[in-house]
């Protein structure tokens, strides 16, 4: 089992969700986050003075998938979230030791 953490542009969330659902992946956790990478921030102007907006709004998606569907899920996210412009985000993959469904007590991949 792997945890896929993807930071994407907020307006791409619905496309990514659809792409993952089409793969049969059930469930995801979404968080509104702020940050910067190579895109850096931008400047805005208020009452004649410029100021830097260093942290841009992004959406963080967390999905746990079984080992054999990781690659499909990664390419689905990448295809759906890509605009080709700077600031499209990043995907991180990390191992998951165990999963438990609270309602039934099912464990590991049966709980996904």
């Amino acid at each position, binding site marked *: 089992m792997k945890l896929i953490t993807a930071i994407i542009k907020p307006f791409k969330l619905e496309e990514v969700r659809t792409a993952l659902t089409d793969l049969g992946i059930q469930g995801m956790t979404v968080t509104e986050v702020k940050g910067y990478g190579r895109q850096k921030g931008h400047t*805005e*102007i*208020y*009452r*004649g*003075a410029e*100021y830097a907006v260093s942290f841009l709004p992004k959406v963080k998606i967390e999905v746990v998938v079984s080992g054999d569907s990781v690659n499909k899920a990664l390419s689905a996210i990448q295809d759906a979230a890509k605009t080709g412009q700077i600031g499209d985000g990043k995907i991180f993959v990390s191992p998951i030791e165990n999963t438990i469904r609270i309602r039934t007590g099912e464990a590991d991949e049966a709980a996904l």
Partner: protein
Amino acid sequence: MKTPQTSRWLVASYAVAALTIFTSGAALAQDAAAAAAEAPAAASASTQYVFNTMLFLIGGFLVMFMAAGFAMLEAGLVRTKNVSMQCTKNIALYAIGGIMFWLVGYNLMYDAVNGGFIGTFAPKVIPPTDADPGSYAAASDWFFQMVFCATTASIVSGTLAERIKLWPFLLFIVVLTGFIYPIQGAWKWGAGWLAPGTDTSWIKDVTGGEFQDFAGSTLVHSVGGWAALVGAIFLGARHGKYEGGRVNPMPGSSIPLATLGLFILWLGWFGFNGGSQLAIGTISDASSVARIFVNTNLAAAGGVVSALILTQLIYGKVDVTMVMNGALAGLVSITAEPLTPTPIWAIGIGAVGGLIVVFAVPLLDKIRIDDVVGAIPVHLMAGIWGTMAVPLTNSDANFMAQAIGVGSIAAFVILASVVVWGILRVTIGLRPTLEDELAGLDKAEIGLEAYPEFGSGSQRVGL
């Protein structure tokens, strides 16, 4: 990036607009001449009494609603963490102004001033129904004058936002509405030493003209502006505003709220200037009130357009909060004389107000005076401009008489404000602790966030 084509296009638009205004002005003048030829008989004294009283009441409640305009403008231009505090200040100052102007203000301003400096210390007596002498209800006059006093207090609140404790601010408002505003008001509107005398006036002997301030560019707006400026100097800037030797903007929480506030103020200004004709029982007075409405609206529009164009040219983008200030500066500019200007003069006088805003806002930042909502450029500087512009369209005024009025009222209000702000600073103190300021005054002074579902309160675990 601006292009030369944009600038040429703007110049061309200006020329077309000016041409349209001149030609339509000529058409209006012909209509007026035709109407004057067959003027109907005058209304009876009791009809005039009713109409004059209605003017005071309607004008008065329009100006009363400017309290809402100031509250929304300021709520929109402060950060989320200070919105409850700003609303509280605005509610409280309107109430305090109303009580103080009854308790001492009105008679200090209007009772037996007789060419002097001050009226009498006594609460305003509201005569019984049907016992009113004169050409309007005395109570309607009190109400109309009271809301002007409250407006003066509203001006101070915005400049000092986000870094002043509630109670010292309210104590200043007690003195401002009970004493400072009424005393200087007595000098001109209370028939004091700046007003024309019964037979001869010393200002006319010295300068050849009278000090003119129709609805209060100086008596209301500059007074609020001076009190705010002195307060801002005593208080200092918000923490971090000028840190690192540069201007660090602190953008306001809600442009829509600030816009609503602007439009409420704009609406209220028809009561402010129109009501200041003080009578509407004759054709001449009614026609004057209508003309004042037109000039008031055109001056605000002129302020908006000049701020739009100037911020676009200077910054490459239109600055919406400065455009709001531009509208208000246009309104303040026309307030000293909303009757005599022709439409093109009204637009021009308002446009200069907008220009003052665009250049004064960064200038104040340069000298490290932190004016959160721009009340000093709008009310003080445009107020001085509007007062000094009166002789351009009114032959009863001249620059020397206007300067004497502006200067003497400035001297008094600055001196009184220095004393009151100074006493408050060394006794109970003006500023909250740094920790409280950073946490926001909603939490520190009021104990309630303006937007609990979006602020720190919303992050409580386990609802």
